[in-house]
């Protein structure tokens, strides 16, 4: 019979440390070693099967697929003069890619889902570009814009996932990335419309972000301010 020197409770013969405080059990007088003693709880663990997420995603895919095929067949059989079903097919495909595809993966990973989504959005835009016979906006503006936005999303997601951080740090980093994103977007638009490559709107965004960043850094370092904020603005 052993007692925890820290908590004062009696411990089972099978344990090597206290279940309440993890203090190791060292008792040379016990007659049964922890290995020989019967554990009060079994070792067998049963993890029940999860939701049939992939099955549900498969059913949803079929639900998407059937009306699309029907519309395409009707469009091809009854000649309306143009391929209207392509709008439905492309829109269904992008919705499927964004909202159903992640659930089909055994282990959804952001480094797979986000690039695939980016490619999907580019292809979706390309469909409309080819139908409307666009004049260069796809390669000069749309694709770079999509890539910039998805890079931003990817970096934010990875930054959040990387480590659990204090919330002022998290907000500060997102604000930095927002100002970088605004610069990139403005430069792309200026390049496309052949304007001088000077940031104007993004400077305003940057100034706002800078003020907020300064505020959140002071929140991070000033405990009194933080306490005041949580007192005043709790929900």
């Amino acid at each position: 019979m052993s007692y925890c020197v820290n908590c004062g409770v009696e411990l089972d013969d099978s344990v090597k440390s206290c279940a309440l405080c993890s203090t190791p059990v060292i008792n040379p007088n016990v007659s049964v070693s922890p290995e020989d003693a019967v554990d009060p709880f079994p070792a067998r663990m049963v993890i029940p099967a999860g939701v049939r997420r992939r099955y549900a995603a498969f059913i949803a895919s079929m639900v998407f697929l059937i009306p699309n095929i029907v519309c395409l067949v009707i469009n091809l059989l009854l000649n309306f003069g143009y391929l209207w079903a392509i709008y439905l097919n492309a829109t269904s495909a992008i919705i499927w890619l964004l909202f159903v595809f992640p659930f089909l993966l055994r282990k959804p990973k952001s480094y797979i889902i986000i690039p695939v989504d980016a490619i999907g959005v580019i292809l979706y835009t390309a469909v409309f570009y080819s139908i409307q016979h666009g004049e260069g906006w796809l390669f000069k503006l749309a694709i770079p814009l999509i890539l910039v936005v998805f890079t931003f999303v990817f970096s934010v997601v990875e930054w959040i996932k990387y480590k659990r951080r204090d919330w002022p740090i998290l907000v500060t980093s997102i604000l930095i990335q927002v100002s970088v994103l605004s610069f990139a977007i403005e430069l792309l638009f200026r390049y496309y419309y052949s304007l001088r490559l000077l940031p104007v709107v993004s400077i305003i965004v940057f100034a706002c972000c800078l003020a907020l960043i300064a505020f959140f850094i002071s929140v991070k370092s000033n405990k009194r301010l933080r306490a005041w904020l949580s007192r005043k603005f709790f929900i």
Partner: protein
Amino acid sequence: MSPPKIWFKLDNAATIFPGQNTSRWSNIFRFSVAIDRKIDPELLGKALQNVIVRFPCYDVRLRYGLFWYYFEKNPNGAPPVEPDVVNPCHRVKFKENRGYLFRIYYYENRISGDFYHALTDGMGAAYFVCTLAAEYLRLCGVEIKPFGYVLDITVPAKQSELDDPYLKCGNSKGRVSRKIQRVYHALGTKMPAHTVNITRGIIPLDGIHALAKSYGATITEFIGALLLFVHYEKQREEKRKQRKVSVQIPVSLRKVFGVETLRNFSLYYLIDIDPLMGEYTFEEVLRHVMLYLRDINNEKTLRAMTSANLKLTTSPFMRAVPLFIKDFAIGLGFLLTGEQATSVLFTNLGKINLPPEMHEHIDFVEVMAGPGKLNAARCGGCGFGNKFVIDFANIYVESDIERRFFTKLVQMGLHVKIESNRR
């Protein structure tokens, strides 16, 4: 021509549980009896087949209707008897386990039943598992007469045991208001899905009884107050926004209304303290809990609370809503308000009354509240002989709540033995 299928409605309390069910969590609890010999699974299987016919309200599977779920006689005989698991009270799926909503486990000398709350409450589970343990001992050659929690399996179930007593007792015109307000919830590192940390504390029943009596309290009041105080202290040390701390104490209505049902028939009290009112000592918290419980624990208030709970099943509008919408609304409601108003739960089944012939063969009995969604530790207690067993089911890795609770009991002079599934 096949005989007509036997079916019955879920009781009033049970109607909300299927809606709360998710792929990761079910409202489930455990009742166990430890005997003086190692369990033979074959014999336990036979005992289960003998016992289950006496409990037709558990020999069921859950079926979907257009407006409500209902129970239908399960044609599969009995659930399988399985070796126990280190992660009890994991979620229920209505088509698993041969359609049964309870699971029977064995480990060394212990028989355990995990019960889905839609089926019954702690008292009903205690009747079933104690009767099962008695039948097992009978098959081992011990003569046991029906008494207390051991029912006579040679006679069929009485109609009064199968009725939904909420409908009879919820006839008060008085109404009680139940405000849902967000209270303190302990934080920690969450355990992986479907796992839970269990800490079992075995205390001398006479010791805890004498200790509670020295404060003029019952065991339920004393432990409820201690849990409240432990959470109050923890919140103060965390130096975060001070919210109210509340303890939920379920109460069986069987004695109050003189009902002998085997289905759900319980309500809960919610007792809170507000740290913004000032500093509390344990004695003050205990006095608050005692006064509150003694004030509210009367037949009239309980009847009014029962009537308020009947709204879901009696309102013509709610009855006409299709099941899938009800399920969605109940699930959403539970997500938003479910455990928001509760910091900790303590359910006490009291002293389990067993036949005298069984006494020498029983080591201990225990009730374990299933893991919560927000509550760090949910607590169940019951006693037999001179052992009072308190079980904590904790969804967090950290064990500070259990440690604070049990060390306080040690400081008050009680002997506490700790067993846990923490490796």
